[in-house]
């Protein structure tokens, strides 16, 4: 299925399989996992700027709680890759302080769920600093970690924080999907002078994607605030981010076989949202399905619905916007209950069929 997508995007099919190779300027297909792409981004940024450093629990000698920072401690030493004691509030505050001084920290949270113990620093110490200081103080800092559902880790490890952080002025909020996104968005985030919330996904860490020639270039930074059209179509627009992009692409493939062409938008940037891409697509198709893992109330889909109303696309709609979201409950643990708590590909397919009927 992925080869089909590659054909759509790049117009060629890779004929040779390669194992993970570090970025080079040769144009041979390179596949890696999202975990490796994030590792590569951090490696390149640590090498590029001596002010960049990584801190968090277990990031150094343990190679990372999810092995994302593998090899970095050995390569850059304990002054650039710092194992912190267990105190999110503490090390986040310390990192923001370092950033206000002029260093460029990358703060790794074991999960965004634990970052709630540090959220005051993210919002009140980092996000609002530039404004409150009339431009005197800036915090060029990246906060990253796993977000959303992971599997078998229940309520306190599965919440999606996209909606909370994308609400805050002063923050940049990014949610990568594949290796291209993960690598080039993280690099862009590190070099951006604003505080960035970078929402990764644990299940995607182990997924393999090809790293495009563009993303392999160590100087390439993805544009912040630009979504990516993963698949073109003119019947229905499906808008998603992170893991839900994968489910949306699967739904689109299924629907394609029934003659329905879906346009799948990978948001990538939740703040700022790419209004232009969203509205252009809505004006083209007239029908929208928004997909997110998080809870419906005040979610990303709610914001997209509002912006369609306000952005001049309202009169192009042939049906109300449909949302496919997580169930509005703290995530349960039991295998059957957890499976029911998050969107499934079939539900996205059903939502598209509904929106084509003009049904609610």
């Amino acid at each position: 299925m992925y080869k089909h997508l590659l054909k759509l995007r790049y117009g060629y099919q890779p004929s040779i399989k390669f194992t993970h190779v570090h970025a080079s300027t040769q144009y041979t297909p390179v596949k890696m996992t999202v975990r490796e792409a994030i590792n590569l981004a951090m490696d390149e940024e640590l090498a590029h700027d001596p002010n960049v450093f990584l801190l968090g629990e277990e990031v150094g000698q343990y190679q990372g709680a999810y092995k994302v920072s593998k090899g970095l401690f050995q390569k850059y030493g304990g002054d650039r890759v710092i194992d912190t004691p267990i105190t999110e509030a503490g090390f986040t505050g310390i990192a923001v302080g370092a950033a206000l001084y002029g260093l460029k920290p990358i703060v790794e949270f074991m999960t965004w769920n634990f970052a709630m113990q540090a959220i005051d620093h993210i919002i009140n110490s980092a996000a609002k600093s530039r404004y409150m200081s009339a431009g005197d103080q800036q915090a060029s800092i990246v906060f990253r970690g796993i977000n959303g559902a992971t599997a078998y880790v229940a309520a306190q490890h599965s919440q999606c924080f996209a909606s909370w952080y994308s609400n805050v002025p002063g923050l940049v909020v990014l949610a990568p999907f594949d290796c291209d996104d993960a690598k080039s968005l993280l690099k862009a985030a590190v070099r951006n002078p604003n505080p960035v919330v970078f929402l990764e996904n644990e299940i995607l860490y182990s997924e393999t994607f090809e790293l495009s020639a563009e993303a392999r270039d160590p100087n390439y930074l993805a544009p912040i605030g630009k979504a990516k059209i993963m698949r073109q179509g003119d019947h229905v627009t499906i808008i998603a981010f992170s893991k839900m992009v994968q489910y949306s692409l699967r739904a689109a493939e299924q629907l394609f076989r029934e003659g329905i062409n879906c346009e799948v938008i990978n948001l990538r940037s939740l703040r700022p949202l790419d209004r232009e891409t969203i509205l252009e697509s809505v004006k083209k198709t007239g029908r929208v399905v928004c997909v997110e893992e998080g809870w419906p109330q005040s979610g990303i889909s709610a914001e997209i619905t509002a912006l369609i109303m306000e952005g001049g696309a309202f009169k192009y709609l042939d049906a109300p916007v449909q949302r496919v979201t997580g169930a509005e409950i703290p995530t349960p643990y039991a295998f059957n209950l957890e499976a029911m708590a998050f969107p499934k590909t079939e539900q996205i397919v059903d939502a598209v069929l509904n929106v084509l009927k003009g049904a609610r």
Partner: protein
Amino acid sequence: MISIEEMDNLLYMSQRQGKISFYMTSFGETATTVGTTAALQSQDFIFPQYREQGSFMWRGFTIEQIVNQCIGNHLDGGKGRQMPVHYGSKDLNIVTVSSPLTTQVPQASGAGYGFRVNGENKIAATWFGEGAASEGDFHSAMNFAQTLKCQTLFLCRNNHYAISTPTDDQFRGDTIAGKAPAYGMRTLKIDGNDLLAVYNGVKYAREQIIKNKEPFFIEFITYRIGDHSTSDHSVLYRSQEEIDSWKSGNNPINRLGLFLKKQGLRQFNDEHDNQIRKDVRNRVIAALKNGSEQQQPSIQDMFTDVYDEVLPHLSEQYTQLRDHLTKYKDQYPINKFKGGL
């Protein structure tokens, strides 16, 4: 302590075999939890961290309850809501295990405050590791417990490692007990692998708390013989020699056995102990077998307990889910769900 060791062994292996998704053992630390809970009274509240199966089992939490919770079947008292080892029991006065570290510690200060204000013969005993003591919540909890005179007992298991982080990277002061006097709090530091020392120390601390109506701090020095959890492989960051030296040299079970023997107080022999181990093993195996044959929790219960009553938007979502399952019923094992649709 022997029963817990056997159970931990089997449940750890059952995770490796894919029967449960996650587990945390307490090898090497059982004297702390068992000794402490024996010295407390049944009306005392316990606020655990996650490695205190000793506290649970001393108070009567059964192997079957533990196994069903880990499997997440319909018999789980927690309705399949929580990850393995996140159990609790209102009947046994043990607050449910919660993942974010150290949040239970200020909660214990609060409960201890309530007990004092209401003049109750109760204390709030809370567990945490030496790593969790780095969290900001530890400071607030300690400071307020002493300032507000809470009937709270702080119990720190210093087991030398917080996942892979050794104590040298966690703090540089004189262990966690070194911090407590700075809050004005009475403090004991106890050899956590000496069951009798643990028991006597906690008994004394409890008496003092009730008598003086102020908190008490105890640090137990012990060692985490096993991995942090089934997601850890501790030989990656410590030597097998180090682990073995504690296992053979300073193990709470061996020490108690030897002490009783030397004092001539040993009622039972090795054969008897081995029989206990065998019985526990069989019981755990039976519980795993029965537990995995049970149905999964009911779908109806998925939307309850969000609030005290089921609000309309939740009933709507339940209906949508039921419709989805009905439409795609051959893709879901609905017969495995208690109560079907």
